[in-house]
């Protein structure tokens, strides 16, 4: 066979256009908080296939399903407020699709809500997160004192080791509010203070672990074992609180410009 052949082009018509965009709010909770963002992405791609969702695809030899993920929590960090958007070629009832999607996901990666969306980029609509950090072995008093010291600091330079070397960040500037809360997600027994905070998204991102590093450096706060960290809300900083990506109020934290901390009720 000496004949010269060019590689075959992808057969068939061009990919069908998207006619509907859906915004999916989902949680990464319990043991599934140990899943990485890539793991979560694979789980959703399979759930989309399993549910027969008419997902739009990119063109080319290896068409990709059009799923856009907002940046996720790191491995080990739980979330009640993750977001992704789906582009569909056939319009679907959001609630039904959400249920179908959820049934193909492992317990712990859970669809919370699906609603119609403009399809615009998520990043501009998600500019801050509210976090809860449960600190085993830390009393509420110690946490309250540490929060006070942290908020009083003008800056909190911390270092984090990344694959690209040591990164230097200011963990204080992006923290909009911080207080001590009683709301718990994972339920440690024993003394376990809970710090709640709202952190503005930044590049490079300041993670809850960076804030914990700062709390250790500034106030000597060292939990007895790994803190459980949960993102409880994500959105845009607005009057009085966080507004979700479609404008709905989310989260618990009050965001008055003067907010420093509230004492434990």
């Amino acid at each position, binding site marked *: 066979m000496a004949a010269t052949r060019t590689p*075959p082009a992808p057969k068939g018509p061009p990919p069908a256009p998207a006619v509907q965009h859906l915004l999916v709010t989902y949680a990464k909770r319990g043991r599934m908080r140990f899943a990485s963002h890539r793991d979560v992405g694979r789980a959703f791609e399979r759930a989309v*296939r399993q549910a027969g969702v008419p997902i739009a695809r990119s063109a080319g030899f290896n068409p990709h399903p059009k799923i856009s993920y907002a940046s996720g929590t790191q491995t080990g960090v739980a979330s009640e407020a993750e977001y992704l958007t789906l582009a569909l070629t056939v319009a679907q009832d959001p609630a039904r699709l959400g249920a179908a999607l959820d049934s193909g996901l492992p317990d712990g990666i859970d669809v919370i809500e699906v609603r119609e969306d403009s399809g615009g980029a998520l990043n501009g609509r998600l500019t801050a997160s509210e976090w809860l950090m449960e600190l085993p072995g830390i009393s509420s008093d110690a946490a309250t004192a540490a929060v006070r010291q942290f908020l009083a600091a003008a800056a909190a330079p911390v270092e984090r080791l990344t694959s690209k070397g040591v990164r230097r960040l200011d963990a204080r500037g992006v923290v909009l509010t911080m207080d001590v809360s009683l709301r718990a997600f994972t339920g440690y027994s024993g003394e376990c203070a809970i710090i709640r905070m709202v952190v503005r998204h930044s590049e490079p991102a300041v993670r809850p672990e960076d804030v914990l590093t700062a709390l250790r450096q500034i106030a000597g706060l060292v939990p007895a074992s790994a803190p459980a960290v949960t993102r409880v809300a994500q959105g845009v900083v607005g009057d009085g609180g966080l507004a979700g990506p479609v404008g709905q109020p989310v989260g618990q934290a009050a965001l008055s410009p003067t907010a420093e901390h509230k004492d434990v009720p």
Partner: protein
Amino acid sequence: MPVESVFPRLEPLLPRVRKPVAYVGGEVNSVVKDWDATDVRWALLYPDAYEVGLPNQGVQILYEVLNERDGVLAERSYSVWPDLEALMREHGLPQFTVDAHRPVGAFDVLGVSFSTELGYTNLLTALDLAGIPLYSTDRDPAGGTWYPLVIAGGHAAFNPEPIADFLDGVVLGDGEEAVLAVTDQIRAWKDAGRPGGRDGLLAALASSGRLYVPRFYDVGYLPDGRIDRVTPNRRGVPPVVAKHTVMDLDEWQYPTRPIVPVAETVHERYSVEIFRGCTRGCRFCQAGMITRPVRERSITTIGAMVEKGMTASGFQEVGLLSLSSADHSEINEIAKDLADAYEGTNTGLSLPSTRVDAFNVTLADELSRGGRRSGLTFAPEGGSERMRKVINKMVTEEDLIRTVTTAYSSGWRQVKLYFMCGLPTETDEDVLAIAGLARKVIQAGREATGRRDIRCTVSIGGFVPKPHTPFQWAAQCDHEVVDARLRKLGAALRSDPGYGRAIGYRYHDGQPSVVEGLLSRGDRRVGRVILAAWQDGARFDGWSEYFSFDRWAACADKALDGEPVDLAWYTTRERDRDEVLPWDHLDAGLDHDWLWQDWQDALSGAAEVEDCRWTPCYDCGVCPSMGTEIQTGPTGERLPAGTRLLPVLNVS
């Protein structure tokens, strides 16, 4: 009494280890049953990392077969990486299952699937973490503590002698029916009030022929170190234990609810075994020898399994598994009908094991139709025609060139070619011939496509002689010779600037193959070496970052001190016809004289062995001794046209 989950104690450790998601379970299609509603409970251990163990077909099949039964529970366990092992020891956590995080020590049976001998040290880690005494004879305490029966299976278990002292039993061959039969016997023994205790149960299992119980056999040695004889040491135990063979795979459609990992694993696809067994007769291939005869699944069963498995998993790829998938009597129809069924769904189809001489244009088209081309790997195994004749892998250079031309013409840009180094009678020239072959492959690809971006990767590893093959008598090539040939081949591949960048070269060092050789053809004395290596820290020996040849060599010296045998005796020594081999009392059905004659034919370059699927029986002995027969199509059936095998969400 319910057995408590160790997860609350494991969870705080997980932020401190790599890849924690591998330990949390909770995968789609995993099963957690009520402990107290069951009376026979299996922990299935794959003695390697989760990312390797999870896709293992054997474990997934047995997991489903067992969990389908009322009153039976099966959970999975995998080797933990050394970072978690250290933390578990520090915090007193036992080896656990990933399904309900129950301690492995609480189960009735710990079933261990060995795909490779390099998992033996990981078995010891798991036993030790589980609190199970390493030696089977230490599991019968008068105090009455129950330890699980430690039962091995899988291909490596066809010579379990090196780990015999650590095992209570071994299942040879296909596991589907065997695990259910063992389950029934355990239940009957429990219902009868556990007559004879642990020993009574093992005796009953051994007498039934279902289980090889090593401790019921004594091994005697000659002064020169060879085995004198292996004899049963109690009544009612068969002198030779035969393998299990499942006939009619259409009756055993597993897995249908494949476990979908959250973690990234080595294979992410729904795999269906399209046939079991292979009679091509490649002399190096243990899998082909011990899984005979060929038993095909019918095209309609395969279609039904794929439909169920893909619907239950959401996987993007279907793997058509077997030892040589293009040899299925209806492979073209299977590939075409599946490609039809999945047209437009972006589903990939892969044939992980494809013979050069069985690949064809139809397959090339169907495999690439979804627009997705998974990797194409062909295994000529030997670089020269002479070498391929010795190993009875009769693919010609023309076959190879024709096949890669088809592949490149169908849009593939890269093919991978797999070879072995250190084969019996091999010379430097045989290995260097691989370089010439690789160049011709590139040349053919460039001519067929008119493009320059054609690539081929040469992948080569050291040959390890395996039990129950015609090469079981062969001297293993020592690692210095293997490494020298691999270096020469590397230099030859790089020597021509016109091809240098088009040809990739991957090779495995010779040293790990020597240890694999020791573990493959070892006898019970090798158990001491394994224990010594494990005590010295050997873990994950199949992983180059953990493997230490020096450790194994030193431990072999120490553990075999005073014996007339050593590492070289087990590996680079040729055996003669009359030597009692450590696995001679374990019967894969192959006739001893046929194997020996085939070994002699290999050395003399006598006529090739054809495939008994298409030519008359060549008397390997398996079918008559095991009461089995070849089951192949064609059935003439097709998958229903126009069916969509993926669910379609109704338009609202």
